[in-house]
């Protein structure tokens, strides 16, 4: 009998075409995904070097990063040059025979929302995209990771990539999360626990009862922020929940092929006794709704906690980073997070823009009004399909009646690409994944939280605990 293997090990070894030694291997890439920001940069050199794409049928493209999310949008962007990327991706996708989810297509949306939603990302597969949050899609039991434009050209031209094998880490959540605690809180809690660089060099598998209990959308949220602890890969083993989610989706296998695929997928979860280079144990019952207070996702605390004092930092480097972070976010050590006044609220991004996210936010918002002190409150669904489904349930009315804007799908204010941005010193409660300095606009102060927390805070005009609103 062979040694017990992890999910990661099984996927990795089944994709090795050539072993270079020294931990490097040539891997087969099953799916390569493009977006509007990168089409120009990957296709132009490819064409100039007269390379061909052997497998355009394994490539997909969508418009998400630079496009407008204003209702009635076209190709034009307020971002200088944004439409260049949009048109280049459209032209090149057509020339090379790549399936494109264009503006107006119900399948268009944030890349990491649309690849699971359309059955493009499958258990046991490898998938790459020029975006660090590609780790999101590991939530369906795949090995998926972000790469740069040059490496992406390599994939287009060869359907392979040279990769260094990472070490493995398993994060096990034992027990169940308390009521009102979401996948976003689970992952923020882990990052706060292990730090922003703990995952460097690792592929993470999330496991345990609290993960098994999550629907696929929640698993995607969990895997999404693996990169915020510097891990390129995050995975959750596929199970019946995953199969039910994928069944019938456009690019998922059908009929007899589906049955055969499921049979194979059932062999992929980590074997009992599989070894990991690092194990992290998390007591799910101890997790509370999380809110960041600084400029790294690791600068996070429970919503009922206070802004930490740099004097209590574990070492000088951390102390210096806390001091700098608090200077940027304009908070004072000892301040209660709850009750801190905010200027704007944003619900969206590859972390939290799926139907389940919008449903949970809408439950909090229903019947309430966005505080008059807020300058902006946006809801940006992750895809055309999410938007359509949400509207069929009347979620758009709930948000609009409360005073939120209900917009078209895209990455939007998760990253300030120049079109939309928050203003200097504006305090934003955001369901996104990065609270880096200047990320949502020069000087903008981002606090990361769950859709429920952002919704409750938008109504209150201050950081608020959704559990106290009686929903």
């Amino acid at each position, binding site marked *: 009998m062979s040694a017990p293997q992890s999910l990661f090990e099984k996927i990795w070894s089944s994709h090795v075409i*050539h072993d270079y030694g020294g931990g490097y291997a040539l891997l087969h890439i099953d799916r390569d995904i493009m977006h509007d920001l990168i089409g120009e940069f990957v296709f132009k050199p490819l064409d100039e070097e007269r390379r061909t794409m052997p497998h355009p049928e394994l490539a997909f493209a969508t418009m998400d990063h630079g496009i407008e999310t204003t209702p009635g949008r076209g190709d034009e962007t307020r971002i200088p040059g944004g439409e260049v990327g949009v048109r280049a991706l459209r032209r090149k996708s057509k020339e090379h025979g790549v399936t494109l989810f264009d503006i107006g297509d119900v399948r268009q949306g944030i890349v990491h929302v649309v690849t699971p939603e359309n059955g493009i990302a499958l258990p046991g597969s490898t998938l790459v995209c020029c975006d*660090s949050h590609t780790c999101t899609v590991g939530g369906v039991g795949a090995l998926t990771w972000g790469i740069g434009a040059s490496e992406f050209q390599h994939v287009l031209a060869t359907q392979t990539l040279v990769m260094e094998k990472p070490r493995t880490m398993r994060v096990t959540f034992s027990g169940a999360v308390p009521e009102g605690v979401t996948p976003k809180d689970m992952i923020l809690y882990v990052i706060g626990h292990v730090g922003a660089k703990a995952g460097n060099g690792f592929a993470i598998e999330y496991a345990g009862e609290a993960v098994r209990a999550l629907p696929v959308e929640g698993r995607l949220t969990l895997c999404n922020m693996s990169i915020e602890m510097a891990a390129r890969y995050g995975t959750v083993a596929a199970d019946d929940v995953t199969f039910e989610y994928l069944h019938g989706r456009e690019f998922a296998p059908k009929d007899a092929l589906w049955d055969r695929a499921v049979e194979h997928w059932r062999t992929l979860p980590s074997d009992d006794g599989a070894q990991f280079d690092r194990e992290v144990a998390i007591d799910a019952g101890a997790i509370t709704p999380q809110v960041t207070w600084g400029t790294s996702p690791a600068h996070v605390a429970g919503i009922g906690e206070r802004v930490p004092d740099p004097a209590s930092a574990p070492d000088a480097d951390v102390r210096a980073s806390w001091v700098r972070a608090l200077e940027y976010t304009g908070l004072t050590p000892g301040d209660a997070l709850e009750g801190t006044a905010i200027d704007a609220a944003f619900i969206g991004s590859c972390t939290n823009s799926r139907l389940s996210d919008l449903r949970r936010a809408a439950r909090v918002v229903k019947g309430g009004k966005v505080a008059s002190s807020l300058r902006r409150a946006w809801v940006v669904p992750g895809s055309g399909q999410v938007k359509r489904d949400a509207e069929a349930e009347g979620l758009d009315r709930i948000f609009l009646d409360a005073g939120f804007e209900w917009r078209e799908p895209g990455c939007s204010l998760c990253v300030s690409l120049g079109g939309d941005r928050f203003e200097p010193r504006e305090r934003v409660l955001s369901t996104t994944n990065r609270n880096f300095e200047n990320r949502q606009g020069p000087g903008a102060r981002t606090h990361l939280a769950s859709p429920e927390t952002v919704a409750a805070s938008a109504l209150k005009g201050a950081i608020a605990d959704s559990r106290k609103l009686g929903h």
Partner: protein
Amino acid sequence: MEKFTRLTGVAVPLMQPNIDTDAITPGRFLTMTMAAGKASFGASLFADWRFDSNDEPKPDFVLNDPAYDGAAILVAGDNFGCGSSREHAVWGLAAYGIRCVIAPSFGEIFYNNCFVNGLLPVSFAGEQVQAIADQLSAGTGGRSMTIDLEAQKITRPDGSELAFEIDAARREALLEGLDAIGMTLKLADEIAAFQAEDRERRPWIYL
């Protein structure tokens, strides 16, 4: 790919940990210079740290210190280049003139992006990197360093040498300026054989 063999130049310390690629190349520049090409990303390097809201240089940011004019080497804190996969961050460093970054560790995507752009990332233990940064800040030994990839060693501002580790294949690719795609295409038969076998095993993958 651009070769990297040996480099002597001014080194600049920027020691805070977790410098993310949003800081290196802010998002709003990702499309602005798309048409102008990679070389134009030098102007936006560390834009929010280098310039104020009127586009005036901030005097307290180290790259605006005349002592580091023409810097070719960046000495940085832990987890440098974490965050977004944007290769624009490496293009920005390269266009500014940085050909080598020394740090205790790097964001993995950034690390790979360096090699494909002829930029050398070098790792040392945190205390060693801090000691180099301290020498640079003091400036007593000058601010020039030499990075010798062939010999796998650096010469610090005080003249002392320090050997570094690097994967042999990556080293060779940089020294020779090898074309990664061309190298892989030499394995076309192996790739085809893998796909033929894999198509039997996992036919649902091959659309």
